[in-house]
């Protein structure tokens, strides 16, 4: 049951610097661990995270095996207009999740 926790301020003044937080449920299996039998546990990580603000990409991050489970990303952007933030996580084994949050800018 992949689920995300998103924190976008519901309201902001135009030009404000706002903090966006996004937490995604994921095991982030490194691919370096072995089972008791010696077999490698296949890598299963999120490889990329993107945030779009009314369609324009404002933040992107590539993820690697050293990132812990349930990755938490926090970043800042400028509140320019009312609208929607769209978040997308893409990873191994066809992992693809999206979430969104809206903001009112006055």
């Amino acid at each position: 049951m992949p689920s995300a926790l998103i924190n976008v301020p519901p309201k902001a003044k135009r030009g404000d610097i706002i903090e966006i937080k996004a937490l995604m449920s994921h095991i982030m299996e490194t691919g370096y661990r072995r089972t008791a039998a010696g077999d490698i546990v296949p890598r299963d990580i999120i490889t990329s995270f993107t945030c779009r603000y009314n369609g324009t990409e404002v933040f992107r991050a590539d993820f690697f095996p050293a990132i812990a489970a349930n990755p938490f990303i926090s970043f800042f952007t400028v509140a320019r207009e009312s609208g929607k933030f769209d978040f997308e996580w893409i990873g191994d084994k066809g992992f693809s999740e999206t979430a969104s949050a809206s903001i009112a800018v006055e």
Partner: protein
Amino acid sequence: MIPVRAIAVRSSVLTVLLGAFAITAVPLRAGDILPNERRSGYSFMAPDTKAIQDDDTANPGMLWVLDGEALWKKKQGSADKACTDCHDDARVSMKGVAARYPAFDKELEQPVDLEARINLERVRHQGAEPLAFESRDLLALTAFIAKQSRGVAISAGDDPALAPFVAKGHDLFTQRQGQLNLACANCHDDNWDKRLAGSAITQAHPTGYPMYRLEWQSLGSLQRRLRGCIFGVRAQPYAFGAPELVDLELYLKSRAKGMPVETPAVRP
């Protein structure tokens, strides 16, 4: 190495102080932490880790709480009933429940912790299979139920029927074991103001279970934590669900009496 002298000094100071506390409701034993010195593990953490726990959108334990909320409403078992069909709104019906667990089960004539209670309800009322210890679903349901008690004062062990089990838990807590020949109390009563390697030794007040440990990269139960500690002193851990672990849980919760529930807590 445990500084034996320090233990002796602390115990003797407490023995003198014990006279003053002998008439209080909760009997203090030699070596017990004084009521005004009790601290949640939260207070030992760095500001960054505290910030993770304090923000429900940064606290990864909330992922399990969300899953638990979905499971609470999901019909299961041969009875095709969801938790909510009997218990309705968990925010009302489950408020304060986790604060009094482990509680006495009259049918089994022994204390059961919250995880065991959820499984008993599944078997008795939903006609469903019990969930495995530490499975995502069991942790999720436990976290969701326990979160409804956030801020409620812990009251586990108040039931007089539990007294012998609390005493057993206390005996286990003070009993030396394993190749290192350490009792829980040697660290958590006698040396909680010190550090073990880089980590704070805390007071063993289980205020936030199930909790998200950064070391585990997952939510985990108090039994998992206890087994980790027992393994740490190089003793053979009790199996999940063993009565000894439940007695220990019960003693620890009774020791934290009055402290607020923090579930889902975050710890390093």
